[in-house]
């Protein structure tokens, strides 16, 4: 009789215990901004390791290809392009948007990543200062990661603006250097060219990339 009552009671208590553990695990997922920070740290470390690798290819074409692949992994070029084009993005057709994103990603990779090859990055240190999550919207999470990059006595503040859409990885959609946004800078340039058609913008971008 005692066993008949005792066994179900123990099962019930164990069940409650397991359920509470389960609830505790569900209630404490890793905050999304920490996930973004970890992803950024890993990506930056990988790029620095690639440049410092003594076996890193000396062929400029191969270097460009490697950096382009890395840039594609690290950046959300669709959002970056949209932010850079501003209002003009609305007047692009689907194909024109794809072409713009392709050449824009090539331009960013060539301008900023390829320049890193052969540079001394031994004493470059990155301090991750602050992580400012933004209000999530439409299955989209965003956070601003404030860093201070130092090389010797030189210091500069760089903010990485990161985004995560649905099941995709965290990616950078804008970079602010000393408070100046890269996307805002491109948008200002495109805003000045009032009469430029989407085709003309893409042709100009393609010529810059192929130079």
């Amino acid at each position, binding site marked *: 009789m005692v066993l008949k009552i005792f066994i179900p009671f123990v099962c019930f208590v164990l069940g409650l215990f397991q359920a509470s553990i389960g609830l505790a695990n569900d209630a404490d997922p890793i905050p999304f901004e920490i996930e973004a920070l970890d992803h950024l740290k890993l990506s930056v470390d990988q790029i620095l390791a690639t440049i410092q690798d003594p076996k890193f290819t000396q062929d400029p074409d191969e270097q460009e290809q490697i950096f382009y692949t890395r840039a594609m992994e690290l950046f959300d070029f669709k959002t970056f392009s*949209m*932010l850079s*084009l*501003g*209002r*003009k*993005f*609305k007047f692009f057709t689907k194909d024109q948007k794809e072409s713009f994103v392709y050449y824009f990603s090539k331009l960013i990779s060539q301008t900023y990543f390829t320049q890193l090859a052969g540079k001394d990055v031994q004493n470059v240190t990155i301090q991750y200062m602050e992580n*400012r999550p*933004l*209000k999530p*919207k*439409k299955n989209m999470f*965003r956070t601003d990661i404030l860093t201070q990059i130092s090389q*010797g*006595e*030189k210091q500069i503040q760089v903010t990485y603006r990161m985004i995560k859409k649905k099941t995709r990885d965290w990616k950078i959609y*804008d970079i602010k250097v000393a*408070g*100046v*946004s890269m*996307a*805002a800078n491109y*948008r*200002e340039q495109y*805003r000045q060219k009032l009469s430029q058609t989407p085709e003309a913008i893409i042709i100009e971008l393609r010529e810059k990339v192929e130079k």
Partner: protein
Amino acid sequence: MNRRKIEIYVGLFVIIGVITMGYLILAIGEVSFFPKNQYLLHGYFASATGLKQGARVEIAGVEIGTVSSICIDKERLVAKVVFRINGDMELSDDSIVSVKTAGIIGQKYIDISPGGSDDILEDGDEIDNTESSLDIESLVRKFIFAPDKP
């Protein structure tokens, strides 16, 4: 009788003068008895130096609203700026807001660069893309104390 006429004229003159004066005060102070259809947006800035309440909010140099209030966000310790935007002006959620200066030593104002997103900002929404005012002093300091200066 004549005296009474003069008094009436003087009285009318004073009344017209007071009404004109009152109209001028309201017009210069941009006070409206019929509140415009407007909505509020806000943004956070690392620095809102020189920006004043009532400053212009512009798109392409055309006024579309004013700065409603400026205060410190006690949690983040950054400036929170609230804008009052004209109701007929639709702004997408990827608009970029910058604190700019009219001329070299002119007044600060807010410039909005409209975005291309289909999501439109509504009353009480936050604009995420903000650029603070340029701090000339810190730029000069960086230039003067640059370690690799010859």
